[in-house]
């Protein structure tokens, strides 16, 4: 084909692909292949269209054909890169690019592609070698820095052993030193160079560069370089010198808090460097420098006035440190804090600023309490109101254990609320989108009510807190702090739809899904109505997980761009890769995935396809090294220091779903799915399309899977509720009991493979890759030589679990416990019921039972199932009844009655009634929904 013909022939295919008309692209490719049966490009484009049509098997076959030829022309390679990326076969991609570069070492483009393929795959070492080679060949600085970054990336990889780290940094250092142009030509390279020197403790060399004219200029405008310089000086122990330098900076007008910290560290050098007992001599030396620094800071504070709070706060920090070292008494510190409060009490951050110095003995000292009590508080202006809020927060922070009584806390809550109402007048003219200046008083009031709830366990206090917050939102529509508190409280009360409404109103999007979805998706199964066909929560799970797909698709491309594009700096690359990794291996991602699997089984048929697929995915997750990106700091906390934080108090069931929870549930589900599935490791390897993800360097991941699944750790169990722990024990007992029979009756791998090959052939017309179906057929004997395992009696726990859950359910029902807890027990029981169905799926097939003589086992299973089934039915019935009771007007008025403490200001009876009604409605809906779902599941799984 001539170039022109070629172009004419292929253009329509590219156009179809661009337009998403993949079917017509396949047709055009077929046409072309008839004429030119060996056209690699036509094959590659067809493979691409097929991947996009989800026809994975067909695409794979083409892929293998093309890769076997080792393509070398750019269009084919570029199409293949998309195909392989789409199939998740990065290893093949790396091989293809490396081969191409090997065959054409003078082709710069292929070199770059081979480098990127390795970077994308985390093969830092190969990337380093390729870039070194490229640097030698093409003599470009850029490639030298590519290899420097690759060495650093390899050094920072968690799987790199400690001693290797230094070796790699030394390599990076050698490479930088070999550069024909000095690193200081760009601030980025300079920064990278400094970091390498810092890592290797090469302080003299670093100092030489930092002290040079260019070095100084770079540090003056680059915060990053300046930070590295500071770190290096500190590592060298030059605290005094650093303090002096910082002082000069401050005198010149710099108000970066880091400079103030340097001044303070310099001041305390005499006592900081001495080990153990501090000598009187160094104490004296320190006292002198204390006075001097105090004078310096006071001078700056005087000059800045109200404009900047750095110097006054540094003065307080100075006195705090001196107090901690026993150089000053507490009264000096308290006086300094009082000065600070007097000066900056009208700033919202004053409480946060001072909180750091409020050690228990300071907070409860008479001197401090008197200072707070003697503040002249009023509502004269917004500044006055802010001061009042700060004082209230400081007072609340210092409250003692003895003052934590229901009466006292209720009185405080009411008092905060009245002050809130009074403060509202100051913001009455603000536009609707603004926050009211008195908002924090409403938050304080809600905090106090929540504390009352933790003291007496009465839901009424929560109703009060909710009323206050809901009212607050009518005045400050945009207060996300109020919404976050409400989300937590509504979930505790079992009113999930209201929690979800508030969550949606916060407009959480993009990367925030990763850090905030824990607010509504933690243990969402408790409230999921998926069994009835209402897919609200499963959908929420999928939507919040979109960000991970975006990350996988875009961030790595971005890293590549950062390497190539002229305008991109390369120093950021390690940081971007860390970012990508933290999202890719986010704990929340997999907690949500687990939650989604749990919900999925309530509304989809237990089909082996689903079980096989989820098994593979969960096993991948089990190999990951997770990062916890969840944001809990966003939750406000104005509880006294002696109390747990609001976050701790308001966690549903008192437990967070972290790594331990995830690990526990993975163990439950992987084992159950493994039992139900015919896939063993060899079959899985054959059927797997993409690569396996990188496994965590944790040595535990190297253990055989059955051993890993059997590990039980107390710190993991600590994240489970008592019901979840019981579920875990139950699943273990059930699995142990049935495992021998699963292992014995599972068809041998070659039979499974033969079946898979047959299915593939039926679907695609070509046999399964790498499987010789003839060989398989020839050995179709599925009889096992060893003897069938004996059928053991049912472990006691397996049946008793359902009885225990039932009696606990009834006990809580009588005690009028919160619906969320009842729903938790019910959904855990329901989960066990489904897991039972998964674990026994294999023994549902009559032929299996007949061949292996499992009649006895089956009748035992039937027995368990019947008992479980009646418990599920019973719970469903009770929940339905409970839901109906929520609808009774008397109950509503009784609760509204209990909320009289908050009928203050503009909160009237109607408002409260409305809040209560919404909660009741939401509760009724979830109780009835879960009840109906359970009854449906009962029908689905009751027959065996």
């Amino acid at each position, binding site marked *: 084909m001539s170039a022109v013909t070629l172009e004419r022939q292929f253009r329509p295919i590219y156009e179809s692909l661009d337009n998403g008309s993949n079917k017509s692209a396949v047709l055009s490719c077929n046409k072309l292949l008839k004429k030119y049966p060996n056209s690699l490009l036509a094959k590659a484009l067809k493979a691409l269209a097929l991947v996009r049509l989800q026809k994975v098997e067909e695409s794979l076959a083409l892929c293998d054909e093309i890769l076997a030829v080792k393509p070398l022309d750019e269009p084919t390679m570029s199409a293949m890169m998309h195909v392989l990326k789409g199939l998740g076969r990065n290893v093949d991609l790396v091989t293809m690019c490396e081969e191409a570069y090997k065959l054409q070492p003078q082709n710069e483009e292929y070199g770059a592609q081979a480098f990127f393929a390795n970077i994308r795959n985390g093969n830092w070492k190969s990337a380093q070698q390729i870039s070194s080679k490229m640097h030698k060949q093409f003599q470009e600085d850029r490639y030298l820095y590519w290899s420097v970054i690759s060495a650093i990336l390899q050094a920072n990889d968690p799987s790199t052993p400690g001693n290797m780290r230094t070796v790699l940094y030394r390599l990076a250092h050698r490479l930088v030193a070999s550069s024909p142009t000095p690193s200081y030509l760009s*601030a*980025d390279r300079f920064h990278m160079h400094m970091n390498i020197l810092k890592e290797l403790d090469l302080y003299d060399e670093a100092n030489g560069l930092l002290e040079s004219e260019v070095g100084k*200029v770079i540090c*003056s*405008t*680059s*915060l*990053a370089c300046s*930070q590295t310089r500071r770190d290096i000086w500190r590592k060298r122990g030059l605290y005094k010198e650093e303090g002096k330098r910082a002082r000069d900076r401050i005198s010149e007008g710099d*108000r*970066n*808090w*880091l400079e103030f910290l340097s001044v303070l560290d310099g001041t305390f050098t005499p006592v900081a460097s001495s080990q153990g007992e501090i000598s009187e001599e160094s104490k004296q030396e320190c006292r002198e420098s204390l006075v001097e620094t105090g004078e310096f800071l006071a001078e700056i504070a005087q000059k800045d006035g109200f*404009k*900047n*709070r*750095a110097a006054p*706060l*540094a003065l307080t920090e100075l006195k705090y440190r001196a107090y901690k070292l026993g150089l000053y008494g507490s009264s000096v510190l308290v006086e300094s804090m009082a000065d600070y409060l007097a000066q900056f009490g009208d*700033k*919202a*951050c004053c409480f*946060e*600023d001072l909180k*750091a110095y409020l050690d228990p003995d300071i907070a409860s000292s008479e001197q401090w309490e008197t200072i707070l009590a003697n503040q002249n508080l009023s509502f004269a202006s917004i500044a006055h109101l802010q001061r009042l809020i700060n004082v209230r927060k400081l007072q609340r922070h210092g409250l003692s254990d003895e003052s934590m009584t229901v009466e006292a806390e209720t009185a405080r809550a009411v008092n905060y609320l009245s002050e809130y109402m009074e403060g509202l007048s100051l913001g009455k003219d603000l536009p609707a*989108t603004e926050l009211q200046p008195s908002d924090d008083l409403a938050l304080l009031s809600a905090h106090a009510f929540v504390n009352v709830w933790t003291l007496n366990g009465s839901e009424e206090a929560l109703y009060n807190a909710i009323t206050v917050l809901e009212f607050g939102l009518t005045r400050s529509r*945009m207060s*996300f702090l109020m919404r976050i508190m409400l989300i937590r409280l509504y979930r505790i009360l079992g009113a999930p739809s209201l929690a979800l409404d508030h969550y949606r109103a*916060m*407009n*959480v*999007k*993009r*990367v*925030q899904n*990763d*850090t*905030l979805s824990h607010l509504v998706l933690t243990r969402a199964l408790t409230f999921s109505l998926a069994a009835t066909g209402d897919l609200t929560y499963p959908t929420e799970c999928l939507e919040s997980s979109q*960000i991970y797909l*975006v*990350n996988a698709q*875009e*961030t790595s491309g*971005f890293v590549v*761009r*950062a390497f190539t594009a002229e*305008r*991109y*700096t390369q120093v*950021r690359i390690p*940081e*971007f890769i*860390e*970012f990508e990794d*933290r*999202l890719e291996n986010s704990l929340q991602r997999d907690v949500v995935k687990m939650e989604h699997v749990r919900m999925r089984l309530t509304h989809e048929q237990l089909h082996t396809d689903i079980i096989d697929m989820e098994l593979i995915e969960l096993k991948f997750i089990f190999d990951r090294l997770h990062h916890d*990106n969840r*944001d809990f*700091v*966003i939750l406000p906390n104005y509880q006294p220091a002696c109390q747990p934080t609001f976050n701790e108090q308001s966690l549903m069931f008192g437990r967070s779903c972290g790594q331990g929870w995830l690990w526990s549930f993975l163990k439950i589900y992987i084992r159950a799915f493994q039992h139900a599935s015919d896939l063993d490791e060899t079959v899985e390897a054959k059927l797997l399309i993409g690569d396996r993800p990188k496994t965590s360097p944790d040595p535990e991941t190297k253990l055989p899977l059955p051993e890993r699944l059997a590990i039980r750790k107390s710190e993991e169990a600590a994240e489970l509720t008592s019901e979840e722990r019981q579920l875990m024990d139950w699943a273990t007992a059930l699995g142990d009991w049935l495992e021998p029979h699963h292992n014995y009756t599972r068809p041998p791998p070659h039979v499974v493979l033969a079946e898979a090959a047959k299915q593939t052939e039926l679907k695609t017309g070509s046999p399964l890759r790498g499987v010789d179906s003839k060989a398989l057929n020839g050995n179709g004997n599925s009889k096992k030589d060893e003897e069938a395992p004996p059928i053991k009696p049912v472990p006691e726990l397996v049946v008793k679990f359902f009885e225990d859950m039932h009696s606990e359910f009834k006990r809580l029902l009588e005690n009028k416990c919160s619906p969320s807890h009842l729903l938790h027990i019910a959904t855990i029981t329901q989960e066990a019921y489904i897991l039972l169905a998964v674990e026994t799926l294999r023994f549902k097939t009559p032929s299996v039972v007949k061949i292996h003589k499992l009649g006895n086992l089956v009748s035992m299973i039937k027995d368990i199932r019947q008992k479980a089934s009646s418990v599920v039915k019973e719970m469903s019935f009770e929940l339905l009844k409970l839901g109906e009771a929520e609808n009774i007007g008397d109950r509503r008025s009784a609760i509204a009655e209990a909320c009289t403490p908050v009928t203050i200001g503009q909160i009237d009876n109607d408002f409260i009634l409305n809040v209560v009604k919404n909660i009741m409605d939401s509760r009724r809906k979830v109780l009835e929904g879960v009840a109906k779902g359970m009854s449906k599941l009962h029908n689905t799984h009751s027959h065996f």
Partner: protein
Amino acid sequence: MSVLRPFSAMDMFKFNNINLDIWTETYGINFYLDYLARWPDLCCVQEAPNGRMMGYILGKAEGSSTEWHGHITALTVAPEYRRLSLARSMVSRLELVSDQQYKGFFVDLYVRCNNALAVSMYEGFGYSVYRRIREYYGSLGVGKDGRDEEDAFDMRKPLSRDPQRRSVRPNGREINVSASSVS
């Protein structure tokens, strides 16, 4: 007192207290990565000593010949840390880097015309209106403040490379340009 440090990609996991505020947009990951990769020294964070983010600024350098300048793309401070001159210190940092590192002629920014508070704040920092950009925030439609809600002021402040102050003009408020004519 706050720590002024470079914006890091990892800050995307921490900026909720700032970005949940309605006036602060949360963009896609790429947006931040692009800025961090291209203008790392024009993107800074103010952080409280306890590690909480207080506010941040994202900026870029663009334009050709005498239009070469620093641009403030996003400037935001969490509600609880307002009225502490944080914006001023971040803006002056950006001006310093635009001046000494990038050798720009001026720094500019866009602000909604009806945001009187912000306009007067920037005037306090030495910025003045250079032109009015019609329908810059057009997607919102005409709100209760009419044209002021969808139009933007392009405000500028000359740097040391422009001692003659050629990048500003006194009658900027009367100069109207369409949104399509600006980048």
